[in-house]
């Protein structure tokens, strides 16, 4: 079984810096592995343990993203590669999903399962996984928290939303977006760190993914940010005591 996990390095959201084009300035901001993507990695590693699988971690971004690929290798994935090209810069969800779908078509033809984190800290659109799935004509399931079973043709997963827990049987290959997974966080072993340090990380550019310049980056992105601002919904706060608070409650009823 071949599993691809798409992971993303996200900026520390407490430390915002922007480029002139109002895109996030990733080079000057502290970065971390997106928390939901970490859950996707853990899910893949759990499947590897249970069924045996070849797990590849793939990230799209600047060379700095090699940091999270190292983290993935240290955790125990088999292969890690980076999709990086200056022409990818400024990609929105639509353009990003084109790059990721091209990566699967060009480099992972025999993939059975593709995992994403449900959403990214920085964008939170939660659309990249589903959009990539649609481009590949693969079925997708959001909010997957547990994988019950996998065989050659199907995977049985549990997806949880606030009112129900639904079990789906999905035809492979499929895309799953992982959220609130049951698989916890493993701690890398020292051998993992050594392997991560010595690993030869492959890097693919736009031509190796056979994409055209106009399909990706700013040119291939239908959406653009016209303005970014700090919003201001301030009210005039008056400090009160507990008596007054109870009175405010009485005013409601």
């Amino acid at each position, binding site marked *: 079984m071949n599993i691809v996990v798409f992971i993303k390095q996200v900026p520390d959201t407490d430390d915002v810096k922007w480029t002139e084009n*109002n895109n996030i300035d990733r080079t000057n901001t502290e970065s971390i592995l997106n928390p939901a993507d970490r859950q996707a990695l853990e899910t893949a590693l759990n499947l590897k343990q249970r069924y045996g699988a070849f797990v590849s971690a793939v990230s799209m971004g600047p060379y700095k993203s090699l940091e999270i690929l190292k983290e993935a290798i240290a955790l125990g994935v088999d292969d890690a590669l980076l999709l990086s090209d200056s022409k990818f810069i400024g990609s929105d969800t639509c353009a990003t999903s084109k790059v990721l779908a091209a990566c699967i078509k060009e480099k992972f033809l025999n993939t059975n399962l593709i995992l994403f984190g449900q959403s990214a800290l920085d964008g939170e659109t939660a659309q990249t996984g589903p959009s990539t799935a649609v481009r590949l004509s693969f*079925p997708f399931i959001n909010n997957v928290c547990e994988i019950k079973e996998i065989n050659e043709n199907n995977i049985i997963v549990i997806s949880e939303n606030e009112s129900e827990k639904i079990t789906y049987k999905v*035809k492979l290959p499929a895309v799953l977006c992982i959220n609130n997974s049951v698989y916890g966080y493993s701690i890398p072993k020292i051998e993992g760190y050594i392997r991560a340090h010595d690993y030869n990380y492959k890097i693919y550019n736009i031509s190796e993914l056979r994409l055209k310049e106009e399909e990706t980056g700013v040119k291939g992105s239908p*959406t653009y940010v016209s303005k*970014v601002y700090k919003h201001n919904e301030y009210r005039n706060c008056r400090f009160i005591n507990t008596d007054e608070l109870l009175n405010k409650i009485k005013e409601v009823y």
Partner: protein
Amino acid sequence: MESDGILIYGELTSEYNVKTVVKQILTKACSLKEKLENCSIKVCLIGNRRHYDELINELGVYGADEVIITNDDRLENYDKNYYPEIFYQIAQKYRPQIILLGSTAQGKEIAAYCASKFNTGLTADCTNLDIAENNRLLSTRPTFGGQLTADILCKTLPQMATVQENIFKDKRIEHNAFARFEWINIDEIERKIEITDIIKKISEKKDITTSDIVISGGLGACKDNGFELINKFAQKINAAVSGSREAFEKGYITKAQQVGQTGKTISPKLYIAVGISGANQHIAGIKNSGKIIAINKDENAPIFKYADYGLKGDLFKILDELIRQYNTEKEEKQ
């Protein structure tokens, strides 16, 4: 082909009523329509209902001009294999300028599916929608962990956006919609996903979206008996309990109780924020509340800027005091 109008996904509840978020989107669509020339508002209903009259009336009252109905026995309940493709085929046929969906489980799936098929842009979880120059849809949403707000435009058609429930207010108007039936052959769609089991979660918790008073705990309450006190006080004053993303991640509340950009948007008459610092993503979920009271020990916490009233101090002591005072008042009355 020329594009025209606004298309909305007419999501229904499990009792086959129009979802609140659809009515709210319709009211917003009416204000967008005023700024666009020759714009009609269409709602797409997918299902197998025999009696559509009530739904058509209901959608009309909130501003729909046309209701497009696809009818098939196999579409009784939402089906991941069919609904996104059917909605896409309808959108392809009617070529709307703008497509709007509720930011629900269904809405998100259909939106992602259509945006990819159309190769167009999609702005998720918008907090406002407007018409910019050249009749473009201007979508506003918090970005970067809610630190900032971004106005987003789309270069391609259709322009797509999803909106959470309670971001907009709905309004009934004097208006009639007419219905159009469309037939889509779903035999040609491959079924790759089947449901094998559904477990309904039963919540005994008071609904935070409908309660007049909501009391909410943040990181500051995520220790010792913080949430115990919040729950106790809430029960006494008949309030619903909610919490921040941190409170959800730490297991003190359920997902249904989470307020903010990644949780629910609420507008109670009174919102009491306990130990919540006031990150923008949290504010996004509560800013339409009637009055906001903040309890926090840090006088520089941003939450105070968004509050009408503030109590500065240790939340555990303040909650203890509130419960004690409440009990005393009750006893005096008896």
